[in-house]
């Protein structure tokens, strides 16, 4: 699998608080990579730096073979990188989901919009203003925008956040299909059941740096990750899930 996106030696501090010191991750076409780590470990910052939304203090980002000290967000987005942040919605509350999709299709061409909305269970809210959507509907609407874009690389920060289990299953399948079509998917999230099932490779973000964990089995077998991230209770549950 070819590497589409690579962030190397990335460091970032916010007003003296060091979040990242020397982080590295790469995303390959057709694969789902999960960045795991505790709250405040720098996962979201790393994704924002990769998308050009935050300027790194040092390090570089490589996207589609081109190296950037600071990628320009508009430029990499136009080239096929799509960032789905968690702290701000990408949808304007003053427009309907349909109006957002109209704009997207005008920019990047038409896609199978109706089928996608049906699949994500949000076809009935297409004409509803985004301000009136529930948290779960909004998240699925954002995922719909990302999927309709057909990006080369999708950076999804906590795509399962606020989504109920039944819909999370749909979102998970949609992201899996996107990867199958050749998109490099990078995601974060604490919903271990969904993330473990979906991702092919895992990277642990801790102490400002990153540590590759390997595939699902290797990740669950990593004693330090189990002890420091999963905690005692969830370990048995996840091990059972993995065994099944």
């Amino acid at each position, binding site marked *: 699998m070819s590497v589409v996106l690579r962030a190397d030696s990335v460091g970032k501090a916010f007003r003296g608080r060091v979040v990242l010191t020397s982080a590295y991750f790469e995303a390959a076409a057709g694969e789902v990579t999960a960045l795991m780590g505790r709250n405040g470990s720098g996962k979201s910052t790393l994704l924002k730096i990769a998308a050009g939304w935050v300027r790194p203090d040092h390090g570089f980002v490589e996207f589609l073979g081109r190296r950037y000290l600071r990628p320009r967000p508009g430029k990499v987005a136009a080239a096929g990188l799509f960032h789905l942040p968690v702290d701000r919605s990408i949808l304007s509350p003053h427009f309907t989901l349909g109006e957002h999709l109209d704009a997207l299709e*005008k920019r990047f061409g038409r896609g199978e919009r109706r089928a996608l909305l049906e699949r994500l269970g949000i076809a009935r809210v297409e004409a509803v203003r985004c301000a009136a959507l529930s948290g779960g509907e909004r998240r699925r609407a954002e995922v719909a925008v990302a999927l309709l874009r057909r990006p080369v690389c999708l950076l999804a920060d906590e795509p399962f956040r606020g989504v109920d289990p039944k819909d999370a299953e749909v979102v998970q399948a949609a992201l899996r299909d996107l990867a199958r079509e050749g998109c490099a998917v990078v995601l974060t999230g604490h919903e271990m059941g969904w993330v473990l099932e979906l991702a092919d490779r895992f990277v642990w973000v801790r102490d400002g740096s990153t540590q590759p964990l390997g595939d699902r089995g290797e990740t669950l077998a990593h004693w330090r990750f189990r002890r420091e991230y999963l905690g005692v209770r969830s370990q048995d549950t996840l091990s059972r899930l993995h065994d099944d």
Partner: protein
Amino acid sequence: MILLPHFTRSLLTRSLVTWLFVRAVVTVGSAALGVPPDPPFSIPPLAVVLVVGIVAVVGWVYARRRNEDQFLLCLGYGPVRLLGMLALPALLLELGIGIAARL
């Protein structure tokens, strides 16, 4: 140019309304200070730059509050293009007024 259904109209309308408001304030302010524009509606070049700048910044703040900047960024339109788009109507109108005043 950002040419998108719904979004372009929204950005331009807001830009236009802000320009009208800022222009009205400048004109009324000048008259109140006892220096009415001569010829009518014309203002010094520095004031034109200020008006266009204010229109762009106010438009950008609104776009940010309405999350339009995030969506446009996902579509490949960065902050520079957004600011340019917001400043464009004010710039064209000021140019138009400047040319009309010289005729």
